[in-house]
């Protein structure tokens, strides 16, 4: 874990206040680290300027790996390691491998996506997820600003947050 990372954490009561606050804070040249909300807030992604997630590319890669692995496995098992005649078909009867190929594709794509998601959101084993404010799982919207990535001082950032409607402003150190 990196230590000594300082964050300014603004707490908001209402999603519409949060949305306008995100606009204001970003408008005054402050980089927002991340927002945490108890439920999905429509339009927040756009306001935060997120680029589209690349998880679909990961899914495709995992999927195609699954297809190749399944076909290699079936061809090796049924055609090379222990050739068997089933229903008078060739040893390597491609059409009958398609269902297994499909299933393994789906399996690897799904597991791969979940794994990727866990790793990038720091939910991996022995990873300690940062909790900026526990109330973000209940009724509060949380905006975290990384001090190291912004040139403004703590006071300046606090006043910007206050102006934009934060009900509470904390400092958090990890």
């Amino acid at each position: 874990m990196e230590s000594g990372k300082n964050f300014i954490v603004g707490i908001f009561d209402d999603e519409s206040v949060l949305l306008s606050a995100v606009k204001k804070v970003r408008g005054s040249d402050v980089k927002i680290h991340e927002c945490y909300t108890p439920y999905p807030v429509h339009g927040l992604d756009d306001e935060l300027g997120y680029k589209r997630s690349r998880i679909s590319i990961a899914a495709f890669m995992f999927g195609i790996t699954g297809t190749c692995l399944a076909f290699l496995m079936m061809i090796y098992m049924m055609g090379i390691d222990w050739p068997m005649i089933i229903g008078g078909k060739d040893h390597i009867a491609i059409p009958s491998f398609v269902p297994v190929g499909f299933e393994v594709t789906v399996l690897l794509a799904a597991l791969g996506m979940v794994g990727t998601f866990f790793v990038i959101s720091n939910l991996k084993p022995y990873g300690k997820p940062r909790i900026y404010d526990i109330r973000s799982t209940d009724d509060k919207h949380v905006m975290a600003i990384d001090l190291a990535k912004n040139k403004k001082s703590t006071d300046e950032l606090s006043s910007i947050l206050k102006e934009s409607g934060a009900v509470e402003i904390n400092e958090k150190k990890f």
Partner: protein
Amino acid sequence: MAEEQFQFTAKAKKRLSILAIVGVVLLILGIFSANSNSHADEASHGEQTEQVAESHGEEAHATEEHAGEEGHGYHWSKRIFANLWINNMYFVGLALLGVFFVAIQYVSQAGWSAALIRIPMSFGNWLPIGGILTLAIFLLGGHDIFHWTHEYLYDVNDPRYDAIIAGKEGYLNTPFFLARMVVYFVVWYLMFRWIQKKSLEEDLNGSSDYYFKLRGISAGFIVFFAVTSSTSAWDWILSIDTHWFSTMFGWYVFASWWVTALAAITLITVILKEQGYLKIVNTGVLHDLGKFVFAFSIFWTYIWFSQFMLIYYSNIPEETVYFIERLSSDHYSIVFFVNLILNFFFPFLVFMPRDSKRHTVFLKIVTIIVLIGHWFDFYLMITPGVLKENGGFGLLEIGMAIIFGVAFLFVALTGLSKKPLIAKNHPMLKEAEHHHVF
């Protein structure tokens, strides 16, 4: 709310007419070349008949008699009937599934499609014409297309008696077949008219009562459609290969029709949008249409593969004959794989990335390919059963498909131009306007 009226301009009509003339010219050229081919074949035809006779052993006598009765077994007019039937089935499906799309949207209370609901609705205008064509082609060319219509098959004393087909007589007899055909078309058309009428009344009076009424009618239509889409597929396409049957066939034809209709809706929406209509249809809606085509291309493949896989694996001669007929012929085996490439690999790979479903260029390319691909799907369902080894693909096929396509567009676009393009009092219109897709 936005009021829009589609203008079926003289320019568009002129373009379509020119296309129709091109189609007619191609068709005539095609008939001439098919005609000369069939005459050239006549010399070798006697030989062929003998071969068939030998292979059938005890049926030898029957085959000779059969050949004598009809002049000779294959005549180019048979190819015309086969083509009429392919195109007729394709466009009847397009019209029917357009109405089905509307019904699905109402029953599921879909908001996203509210602005473009009039486009699939206009497809239904083809239903009466399709019905008359189906009836006419069956009455004129029934014997050419459907083997089971020959009466001698059911006569125990006739040497050509076919026990298997005779066993199906309870369902597969001409009066019942015609009655079913009439019932399908009459009910489909009346339900379509009813949906259309209520939707237009909603435009004038604007009350949510119409919306709920439409939901009820649509639910009724879907129930009737659920049964008749399968039975009509058995009647009109599966019964061509009378001995063979597949329990997945109804679904298979439905899947093919459904992708075709979705592709046509998408294509027309995109083209109208490019011409400045349908301003409230945003990129999100186009994205969803693209997803629909993508998803149901995969669905079609799933059904296609399930049918193929089960028959391939169980390896029962009565069933495999269907695929052997298609895969062992030089001509059909190419179409067989082209069908799979155009209808699965192409839309699957091109429509996989998000951006390709949001750009009109890709939407147009893929939907046109899918529309052509599913024409080949129907070609592959019908031609081998009707024409056996005499099937071909040439100017005749292209010309006939163009004529049918132009006629369908003419009817659908005329229907579209007579009504407001946007159902302005549709309660979900606001939702469609703000439809947002990630």
